[in-house]
């Protein structure tokens, strides 16, 4: 008898408690009006950045396309007259992209970067294929001071080997002969 009364009491109590939840704070974040916080390292929409001089950072080395586990990156290398490499086209199919960030890790020039933006829905799947004009931004992204051609030993027109920052002139191996 006591157990039955206790059971009835317990059920009534849970009814009251659940009813009181009517006035509780709601956990729902009402998305389009309230944007969720995205941390700076959030892996969202992929961009191609420029170096501080405003030149394209991408040197079309293809490492991102190789690293990409779903194969959603396609690009073609070409060259400017002064010897800089750059992609003729650069295409990311975002309907395949899984936003894993491996392309960003693979990039030797910090060109390809993932940004905290996920609002890229489309009604037409074709519109999810982004070309270079859509990917390329005018800023430097996460690395404001990095300029690949100024620190790397690549020789381009106007900058022979060994003249980059923190770089010594190449050693003439023949002069080291005993």
């Amino acid at each position, binding site marked *: 008898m006591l157990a039955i009364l206790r059971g009835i009491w317990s059920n009534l109590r*849970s009814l009251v408690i659940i009813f009181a*939840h009517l006035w509780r704070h*709601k956990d729902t974040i009402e998305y389009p009006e309230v944007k969720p916080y995205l941390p700076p390292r959030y892996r969202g929409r992929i961009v191609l950045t420029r170096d501080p001089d405003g030149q394209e950072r991408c040197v079309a080395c293809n490492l991102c396309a190789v690293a990409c586990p779903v194969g959603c990156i396609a690009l073609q290398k070409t060259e400017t007259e002064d010897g800089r490499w750059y992609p003729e086209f650069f295409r990311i199919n975002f309907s395949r992209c899984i936003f894993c960030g491996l392309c960003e890790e693979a990039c030797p020039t910090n060109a390809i970067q993932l940004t905290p933006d996920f609002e890229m829905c489309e009604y037409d799947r074709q519109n999810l294929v982004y070309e270079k004009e859509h990917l390329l931004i005018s800023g430097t992204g996460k690395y404001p001071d990095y300029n690949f051609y100024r620190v790397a030993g690549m020789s381009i027109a106007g900058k022979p080997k060994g003249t980059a920052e923190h770089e010594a002139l190449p050693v003439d191996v023949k002069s080291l002969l005993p």
Partner: protein
Amino acid sequence: MSGLLHWLGSPGVLPVLVGIGKAITLLLGVVLTGALLIWVERRLLGLWQDRWGPNRVGPLGLGQVVADMVKIFFKEDWTPSFVDRPVFVLAPCIALSVMMLGFAIVPVVPGWQVADLNIGILFFLAIASLGVYAVMLGGWASNNKYSLLGGLRSAAQMITYEVFMGLAVMGVVVQVGSFKLGDIVAAQANGWFVLPQFLGFLLFALAGVAATHRAPFDLPEAEQELAAGFHTEYSGMKFGMFFVGEYVGVVVVSALLTTLYFGGWQGPWLPPIVWFALKTGAFIVLFILLRAALPRPRYDQLMDGGWKVCLPLALINLLVTAAVILARQPV
């Protein structure tokens, strides 16, 4: 045309037409309330689970009702090849029509009642018992072991709960001396029956929840154990009829609780229809609250509770009521 007008003008036709109009209005009202409950339930469950529920479509999310109905009307209505086709089609029709028939005896406001039967309560009990055929036939015709289990559970649950549902409501009938719901409402002018018949009210409410297969007595569907039980194989509008039938059942049982124990449309200041709607709405909210708060009992606990606790209590309630009535009677 003139013949039609002549016929319309003849005595006795107009009351019939008015009666039909009232019946159709009530029917539409019940079905629309049932459809609206889709939204009410989702909203309330959401609020009680610290969410908002559907609040995007239209004002307060009310457009969700229309969206859900449009969806269910245009869904593919697929009949699996292994089912017993005629019975499979018949079952959802029974589910919806029977519950709507049940509303016929409820006096909404004075003069607005589809049928003031002199066996009103008995009619409802008979109709509620017919409701089990929908679930049983649906479970059987689906040719699916989970559906069959759901159907079996439903049959046993119905037998258990119909018995003491009838006995619980007899307390009211004994006090009034009539099965007519109009008389029962009139007899509550000086006090609602919920006070003298509190035990009967509790038992009837319990049996009402069980009769509509609502949680916590939703063993025939039991999403977790039986994969939706008797309506596993149903889709499209056939499933929709089961679905709306359940909500109409909620409305009917709430309306009956109001009528039998809370004075029906009676109340001060406000017009009768408002009182009726308020009381019925409160019971509908209680139905949803039960679903939000309580876990489903085990099958044997359900049977135990029905036969060993509720049936004796209903009998005691009836006996005590009868004894009091007898003792008060002038010799």
